[in-house]
């Protein structure tokens, strides 16, 4: 019995990552809805962290945050730090078993997105970038969170088929002898 864990299909993830990066460059500078802008990098990092071990999630979060910082006018390193920590927390909370367009995944990602945006607003306020505390947190923060959730839901839906069938853990694929040779 040789039950190697099958190598995760990395192609859909790269496809999603590239699409998210292109969208991050093209869409947020142009469209702002109710004082909020969508952040595809937040959505990408948290969605990918659902089905990753914490170590990989940290890399993903760092890379996504750094990409966002470099392509926006925000202080470089702030979103990098926030997404690094947030991805780790999401990956630890999900135990790498979530993913796909499920209620649990959506809930965890939504909480993560709101937390990221609120912390970002808070940090920007204390750094002096934002002057209105409430507006920084609940004006930009909430509306951006809603837009990020929509983006995350789309990513989860798109990646659902590949991530849910990959079966990283025993819970998803069953079988106590899963890793027996």
């Amino acid at each position, binding site marked *: 019995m040789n039950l190697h864990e099958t190598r995760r299909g990395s192609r859909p993830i790269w496809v999603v990552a590239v699409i998210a990066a*292109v969208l991050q*460059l*093209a*869409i947020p*500078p*142009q*469209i*702002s*809805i*109710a*004082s909020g802008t969508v952040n595809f990098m937040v959505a990408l990092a948290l969605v990918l962290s659902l089905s990753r*071990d*914490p*170590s*990989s*999630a*940290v*890399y993903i*979060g*760092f890379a996504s*945050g*750094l990409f966002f*910082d*470099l*392509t926006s006018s925000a*202080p*470089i*390193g*702030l979103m*990098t*730090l926030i997404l*690094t*920590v947030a991805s*780790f927390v999401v*990956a*630890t909370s999900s135990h790498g078993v979530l993913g796909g367009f499920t209620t649990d995944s959506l809930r965890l990602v939504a909480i993560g997105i709101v937390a990221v945006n609120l912390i970002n607003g808070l940090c920007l306020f204390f750094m002096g970038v934002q002057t209105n505390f409430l507006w920084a947190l609940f004006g930009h923060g909430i509306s951006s969170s809603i837009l990020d959730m929509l983006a995350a839901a789309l990513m989860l839906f798109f990646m659902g088929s590949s991530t849910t069938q990959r079966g990283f853990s025993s819970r998803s694929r069953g079988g106590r002898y899963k*890793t*027996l*040779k």
Partner: protein
Amino acid sequence: MAKRQKYPSSHLNTKRQSTGLRPLIVFSILSVLILTFYIREGEAGPIHSVRSGIVTVSTPFKMVGSVVATPFNAVGNIFANLTASQETLSDLKDQNAQLTAQVAELSEAQQTAQRLESLLGLQSTYNLQSTAARIIGSSSDAWSQTVTIDKGTLDGLTLGMPVCNAYGVIGQITEVALNSSTVLLINDETSGVSAMVQSSRAQGVLRGQADGTLRLEYVPVDAQVASGDIVITSGIGGVFPKGLPLGTVSSVEKSDNDVYYTIVVRTQATTENNEEVLVITSLTEEQIATDEEVAAANSEDATQTPSDDDSENSSATDDEASDSGQDSEDSETQTDEE
């Protein structure tokens, strides 16, 4: 000695699952360092330079996004309006009022700039030695067609100087003060300008009429004049530069026994909307009619004079045409003397 029973190797994942703490700490510290350097370094620092390079590379994506996202911008405005507070709306209304005033002001400035640009074009085209002035009022009575400009003797203006705008001649200075001058418009009844039809070179005098129209008088019937011909200054008299546009022939009439045409000219230059004008301060040699042209004009008139049935008209023509070379002001503006 009992051998230790060997269980089949299960090859269970014996490696401890990484908790991710180490990379978390490392990358968190790295993030904080980047943030610190970003804040402390200047605009020319390495982190800023990296961002600058990234922005340069990513600009095409943003341009594409701009094209694609333009139709959706209205959606954002709708949401923003729905969530705007009353205070915000009030501020926006005030801002809108201010911007409307600014737009009107800027539109006015733009029109002024266009007029000045046209004047400069005219000045350049005709190589005019001139001074710019602004119309600050028109005649205060209904019987004369004059405007007042904001330049006078302090600016070097003198009596008789011609005035034009971007479309051509509008008149001549008839009164001058220290800081203002009165310009008699060419459509005033007392005004007369030596003119000619551009295409046939037929010469005459352009006079204002009581109804405000212009007539080109003393053009003999054997000359070639047609509706639509352009009338320009002839330069005879040495007051108006030769070749400046005056108007366009709108109708040409001739009765059986007439010696001269009745030519109605539609002026190109109107002063109602022309705030800026050019006062021509001096003429160059080539802008004045040559002796040959004056002689030609005189001879043209002389050939007509013997056949004149109307002695009053002929004498007037003689006076204007033959005197034009000697006394320019008499021939061009002081027509009321005749």
